[in-house]
């Protein structure tokens, strides 16, 4: 089946079998290697992509289901200002160890920051923790990830008490 979608701002058309998952289309057909293969059943979040700006797991999406959608991966955010700040905070806070979960973690964090800034609502620490619940990090960098996200938020919306 022919499927059209936008990948990181560029229109793409692929011809896929209906049983092909988006994870495979991205990695094997389109060479998007930041999207990682993990548990393949929606639990680890390593294959997270943004579908119309919202995080979703590409292992539980058929490529035919995203026809007409906008798909974003970290490759599409290199020149995005907010994303740049987030990456900087990840590196300053050592929020990365082996790096396998990092692209997906960044995408979820980026989508979360975008929503918070759009609504101009300052999320609580619990909100931050809950937002990244679906991104497992086997190195256990969670406290650092939360710190990195918090620091971007503080710069934009003021200090946490």
């Amino acid at each position: 089946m022919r499927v059209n979608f936008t990948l990181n701002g560029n229109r793409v058309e692929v011809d896929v079998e209906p049983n092909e998952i988006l994870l495979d289309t991205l990695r094997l057909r389109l060479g998007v290697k930041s999207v990682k293969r993990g548990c393949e059943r929606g639990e680890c979040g390593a294959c997270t992509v943004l579908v119309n700006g919202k995080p979703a797991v590409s292992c539980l999406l058929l490529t035919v289901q995203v026809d007409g959608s906008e798909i974003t991966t970290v490759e599409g955010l290199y020149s995005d200002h907010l994303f740049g700040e987030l990456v900087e905070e990840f590196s300053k806070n050592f929020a990365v160890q082996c790096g396998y979960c990092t692209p997906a973690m960044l995408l979820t964090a980026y989508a979360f920051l975008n929503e918070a800034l759009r609504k101009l609502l300052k999320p609580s620490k619990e909100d931050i923790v809950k937002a990244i619940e679906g991104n497992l990090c086997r190195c256990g960098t969670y406290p650092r990830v939360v710190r990195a996200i918090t620091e971007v938020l503080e710069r934009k919306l003021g200090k946490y008490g």
Partner: protein
Amino acid sequence: MYYKLPKIDYYRPKTLDEAIRLLREIDNSRVIAGGTDLLVDMKTSRVRVRALVDISSIPDLRGIEDLGRTIRIGAATRLQELIESNVVSQNLPLLKAAVESMGSWQIRNMATIGGNLCNASPAADTAPPLLAYDAEFVVIGSEGLRVIPSTKFFVGYRKTALNPCEILKEILVKKSEWSGWSYVKLGRRGGFTLSVVAVAVLAKVIDGVVYDVRIALNSVAPVPIRAYKAEEVVRGKRVSWSLIEEAANTVAGEVTPIDDVRSTSWYRREMSYQLAKDALAKALGVA
């Protein structure tokens, strides 16, 4: 690659009529909404189907509306939309609390309320609140519409009252004034997990007397259940700790849990008692 999905056909109808026709005409076809249950089941060969009918772009199945006396929720509404809806926060806080406990942000952006109900897992988290609210499920098939009370919807382990070619269209909940509610869920880890046991309670307490109460649980029987006997224990009585203990004991007597990967029957019964106590105390306003 650990999992390979079998060969399938895929259809994305724009209308309900077309979806029903496809389901009727194609052998071994199945509705897909968010796919978060179905694709896992297909990957692990628990479910085998030939064709998928994607109902997620049918406008009639989407949206949350305040109809005055009733709230309407389209079956293909995503879980995250429920959490973000003012109509849900204002009128159905118990449902909101249950949905907040489900999956991760990623999963809630994909999964639908109808998928959770039609999958009919004993652990389905939207079931206890909807059983407690006495919701009604509107289903549609080639014969037209029919309404199934939530308490008649789950007929057996992963089995619903839907006929093979029927689609769950929407969920209707009558508005009612409840003075308290609670959703207490125990899982294997903090968040983002199927329940070992969960208890939902709605209560109407006026001047210390319980005028009405609803108690529902998941993961303690082949289907999500109402604890009618425990409700009878509480209804009409004055709120007290001994009443809560008696009701929680009754709950533990009503459940029929099993051993499985997440827990044992013994532990589930024990936790039904503990969680019912916590949930009742909170909903009755004594916690």
